[in-house]
C-alpha cells in the first residue's frame, strides 16, 4: 500500500493494521485470528494476547478503555490457562469459553454486516421519485435528570418571577346608566352595529362590564337583539323594531 492516510502499525510478523479498520477490540481480535489462521474454538491464547498487546500499543489504542479491558481479559485467561489441572478433571471449565462464544457471536454479526452492506449498495442502484424528505426528527429520549439538576432548574424558574406588587383596591362603581344611554343613542342612529361600537377603541375592564350589563338589560327589555355567530365570534347588535318596548 502507498501513502497510508491512517496510522499504521507493522510488527515483526509483517502484518499491516489500519486503525480505522477496526470497530472495536473484538474486531481487532478476529483480525488477528484470521491473520494467524488459527482455530477460533481452540484459541492459542498466549500468542493472541501478546499480539493484541503489541498492536494496541503500536496504534496508541492502549488509551482506549474498551481495548484495555479486552487486553486485561486476555491476560487473565492466559494466566488461568497456565494453572495446573489434573488429567481427566471433569470439573475443569475452559477459561476461553466465554471469549470464544463472544467472538463467534461477533463473527456472525460481521457476516450480517456484509449482507446488509451489500443489500444497501444494491438498493442504492435504484432511485425513487425526487428527493425523499428527511425523516421527521425522532422525539427526544425520555428525560434523565438527577435531583440536583432538577432543583437548580426550579431555582432558575422561580428567580424569574418578579416580587409580588401590592395593589390598592379602589372601589369604582360600574357605569351601567352611562352605557345604557350610549347604546340607546347608537340604536337611534343605526339599525345594527357591533360590540366594538359600544365599548369604543380601548375599553377598560369597567367599560366592558358596564356595556355588557347594559346590553343584556336592553335585550331583556326588548329594545335590541343580540346575536353571535359562534363562541368568541364578534357580538352583533340589532335594533328590535318589530316589537316595541313596553
Amino acid at each position, binding site marked *: 500500500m502507498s501513502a497510508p492516510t491512517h496510522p499504521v502499525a507493522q510488527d515483526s510478523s509483517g502484518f499491516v493494521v489500519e486503525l480505522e479498520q477496526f*470497530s*472495536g*477490540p*473484538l*474486531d481487532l481480535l478476529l483480525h488477528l485470528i484470521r491473520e494467524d489462521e488459527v482455530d477460533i*474454538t481452540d484459541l492459542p491464547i498466549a500468542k493472541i494476547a501478546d499480539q493484541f498487546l503489541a498492536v494496541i500499543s503500536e496504534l496508541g489504542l492502549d488509551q482506549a478503555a*474498551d481495548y484495555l479491558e*479486552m487486553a486485561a481479559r486476555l491476560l487473565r485467561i492466559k494466566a488461568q490457562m497456565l494453572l495446573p489441572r489434573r488429567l481427566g478433571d471433569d470439573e*475443569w*471449565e*475452559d477459561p476461553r*469459553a*466465554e471469549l*470464544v*462464544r*463472544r467472538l*463467534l*457471536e*461477533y*463473527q*456472525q*454479526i*460481521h*457476516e*450480517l*454486516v456484509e*449482507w*446488509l*452492506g451489500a*443489500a*444497501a*449498495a*444494491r*438498493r*442504492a*442502484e*435504484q*432511485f*425513487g*421519485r*425526487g*428527493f*425523499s*424528505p428527511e*425523516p*421527521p*426528527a*425522532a422525539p427526544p*429520549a*425520555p428525560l434523565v435528570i438527577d435531583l440536583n439538576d432538577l432543583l437548580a432548574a426550579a431555582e432558575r424558574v422561580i428567580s424569574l418571577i418578579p416580587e409580588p406588587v401590592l395593589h390598592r383596591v379602589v372601589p369604582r362603581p360600574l357605569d351601567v346608566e352611562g352605557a345604557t344611554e350610549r347604546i340607546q343613542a347608537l340604536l337611534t342612529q343605526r339599525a345594527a352595529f357591533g360590540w366594538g361600537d359600544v365599548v369604543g377603541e380601548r375599553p377598560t375592564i369597567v367599560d366592558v362590564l358596564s356595556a355588557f350589563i347594559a346590553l343584556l338589560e336592553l335585550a331583556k327589555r326588548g329594545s335590541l337583539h343580540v346575536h353571535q355567530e359562534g363562541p368568541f365570534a364578534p357580538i352583533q347588535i340589532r335594533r328590535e323594531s318589530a316589537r316595541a318596548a313596553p
Partner: protein
Amino acid sequence: MSPLAQLLEAALFASARPITVEELATLDPQAGAAAVRGALAELRDAFATGDHGVELVEIAQGWQFLTRREYAEAIDRAQFALRPRRLSPAALETLAIIAYRQPVGRVEVDEIRGVDSGAVIDKLSERGLVEIVTRGEGLGRPLLYGTTPQFLEILGLKDLDELPRLDELSVALRPPAPAEPE
C-alpha cells in the same frame, strides 16, 4: 390496464416513498385490499414486460416506482439524484444487532460489539433507521430499540423476514450456554 391499476399508477408516481396496500386502498372506497393487490400485480407486470426505465418494486411493506438498475450510473453521473450516504461499519454492526435482537437495549448492543455504542445508536435514531419501541423490565427500565420501515427501505427489503436466517449463515452461533469442555 384496468382503471384501478391506472389510479394506482398515478398515486405511486406522485409519491416519493413506498405506499402500503392499506394506504392505496383508501384511494378508491369501492376497492378492497385484494383488488388493490391484484391491480398492483397487473401494474408491476405491465412495467416489467413493457419497455420502461422504471419498475414497480415491493419494498418496506409498500410499493414504489424505482429506476432500473442499469440506469444508476448515468443518473448518478448527471447528478439528477443523490445516492444515500453510506453507512459506516460501526453503524451496520449496530443495525445488524438491533435488527436481529429487537427489542434490544443499549447495554446488550455494547456487550456484543465490545465497545460503547451510544453515539452510533443516536445517529441511527436521527436517520430514522431505529427507534425506541418500548422499555425493558430490568433495572432502570432501559430503553429498547427496534428497526423502522426506513431501515427496510434503505436495504430494499419487503420486510424483516427477508433478512437471512441466522442458521443460514456460515458461522452458526452456539447456544448461549457455556460450551462443554471436550
